């Protein structure tokens, strides 16, 4: 009897080893769409934990600007927003393509977050299923920018790979908020930043040379500085997501292994692992959905 149990257990371990180390990870996805069954426990736990966290360690802003400066900037922003709204209306009337794209919201459905990753990865579990029209590789958003993409979905749950997950890659561009400009922002002329998830709620960019950052004092062009924003600019993603915010530059340091290159840490504006609701872009046309799907294959 003992020998028989040992054989069965060894066979189970061998199967698990094959699945984890040898077979493609997508193979087990069909068995894994049951995250929603944990919602009766995880959702109230999340609410309680979130309330407790906000009380014990409330989110602090690192904005040290004077209140008067903020008020002045708000006024300038109002003018910019009014100007941009007018321009947008005009462009919508003139450009058919833009009319087709419309607002991203009309392609999205709101879903509740029931929990986050129980392991060491950056992911969220949604109370969404394939019956809601959610499919793999669909983009996931909030009002503050891109959150990630649907990694797998089943009959009772969906899992989102966050942009901060260590297996997430995307290209972007640096922008600097500038209320004096007509467009309200300035795109910095740098090499295309390749943005990678770094885990623990952070993104990193390591293909930008030091001379393109404020770590050097070459005055020839605008350089990437702490506080600049990183936006999505990736041809493999649906075009109406171009310009969605990925995060804000938190720190710039010299890379250990490559002294000519900078290590830029980028932090999303919100703690993505603590979101309560997200928007899934599940009403895409087929061709755009395929583009996002291709992207998943490339990043893998």
């Amino acid at each position, binding site marked *: 009897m*003992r020998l028989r*149990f040992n054989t069965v*257990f060894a066979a*189970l*371990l061998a*199967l*698990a*080893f*094959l*699945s*984890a*180390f040898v*077979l493609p*990870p997508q*193979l*087990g996805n069909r*068995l*894994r769409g*049951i*995250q929603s*069954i*944990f*919602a*009766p*426990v*995880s*959702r*109230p*736990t*999340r609410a*309680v*934990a*979130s309330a*407790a*966290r906000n009380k014990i360690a409330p989110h602090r802003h690192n904005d040290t600007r004077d209140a008067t400066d903020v008020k002045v900037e708000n006024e300038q922003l109002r003018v910019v927003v009014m100007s941009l709204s007018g321009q947008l209306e005009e462009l919508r009337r003139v450009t058919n393509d833009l009319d087709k794209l419309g607002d991203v919201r009309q392609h999205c459905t709101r879903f509740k977050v*029931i*929990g*986050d*990753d*129980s*392991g*060491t*990865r*950056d*992911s969220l*579990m949604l109370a969404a299923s394939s019956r809601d029209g959610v499919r793999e590789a669909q983009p996931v958003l909030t009002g503050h920018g891109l959150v990630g993409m649907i*990694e797998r979905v089943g009959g009772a749950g969906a*899992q989102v*790979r966050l942009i901060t*997950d*260590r*297996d997430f890659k995307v290209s972007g561009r640096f922008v600097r908020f500038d209320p004096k400009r007509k467009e309200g922002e300035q795109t910095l002329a740098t090499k295309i930043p390749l943005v990678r998830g770094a*885990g*623990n*709620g952070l993104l990193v960019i390591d293909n930008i040379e030091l001379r393109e950052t404020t770590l050097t004092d070459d005055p020839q062009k605008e350089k990437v500085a702490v506080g600049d924003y990183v936006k999505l600019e990736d041809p493999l993603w649906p075009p109406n997501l171009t310009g969605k915010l990925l995060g804000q530059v938190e720190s710039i340091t010299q890379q250990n292994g490559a002294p000519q290159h900078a290590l830029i840490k980028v932090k999303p504006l919100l*703690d993505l*692992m*603590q979101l309560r609701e997200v928007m899934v872009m599940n009403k895409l046309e087929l061709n755009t959905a395929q583009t996002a799907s291709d992207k998943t294959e490339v990043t893998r």
Partner: protein
Amino acid sequence: MRLTTYLILVYLVIGLQIGMGDFVRVGASGARPDLVLLAVVFIAINAPRDAALLGAFGIGLVKDVTTLAPLGLYAIAYSLVGLFAVAMQDYVKRAHPVTHVTLGFFCSMVAGAVVLIHGWVKGPTAPFAEVFWSAVYTALVAPLVLGALNLVKGAFSFRRRHPRAY
């Protein structure tokens, strides 16, 4: 071991882990306690060998459903934890807080080692600091979690282990 109680434990502990996971992160490394692993330790130091190993494998498999890691990774990790903790059954005082802290740390490191090796082999690499500090964090909360589980130990009907027949 009573199957229903085991399934309720798995359901509760996985639900708690995915519900509070990120809100209990601390430090720059993003360490967080692994409540699921503590449930594995609890089963493994109390249940008979076969039930403990199957139980550990089962919890790992359910955890695999709720993480981005490939299916089977935590099943292996927790099975190894199970093997380690089962081997310790005769040498430790099961209800002692020092046992809980020690097993919490070493078992977390065993599971973390599997995750690290998987990262090196298949990518993406898991940061060692996160694994290490999560092990420390898990060890610190172990007396509380395992102490609470010990209070309801009777519901599991763990049978006394018999000496091996061979």
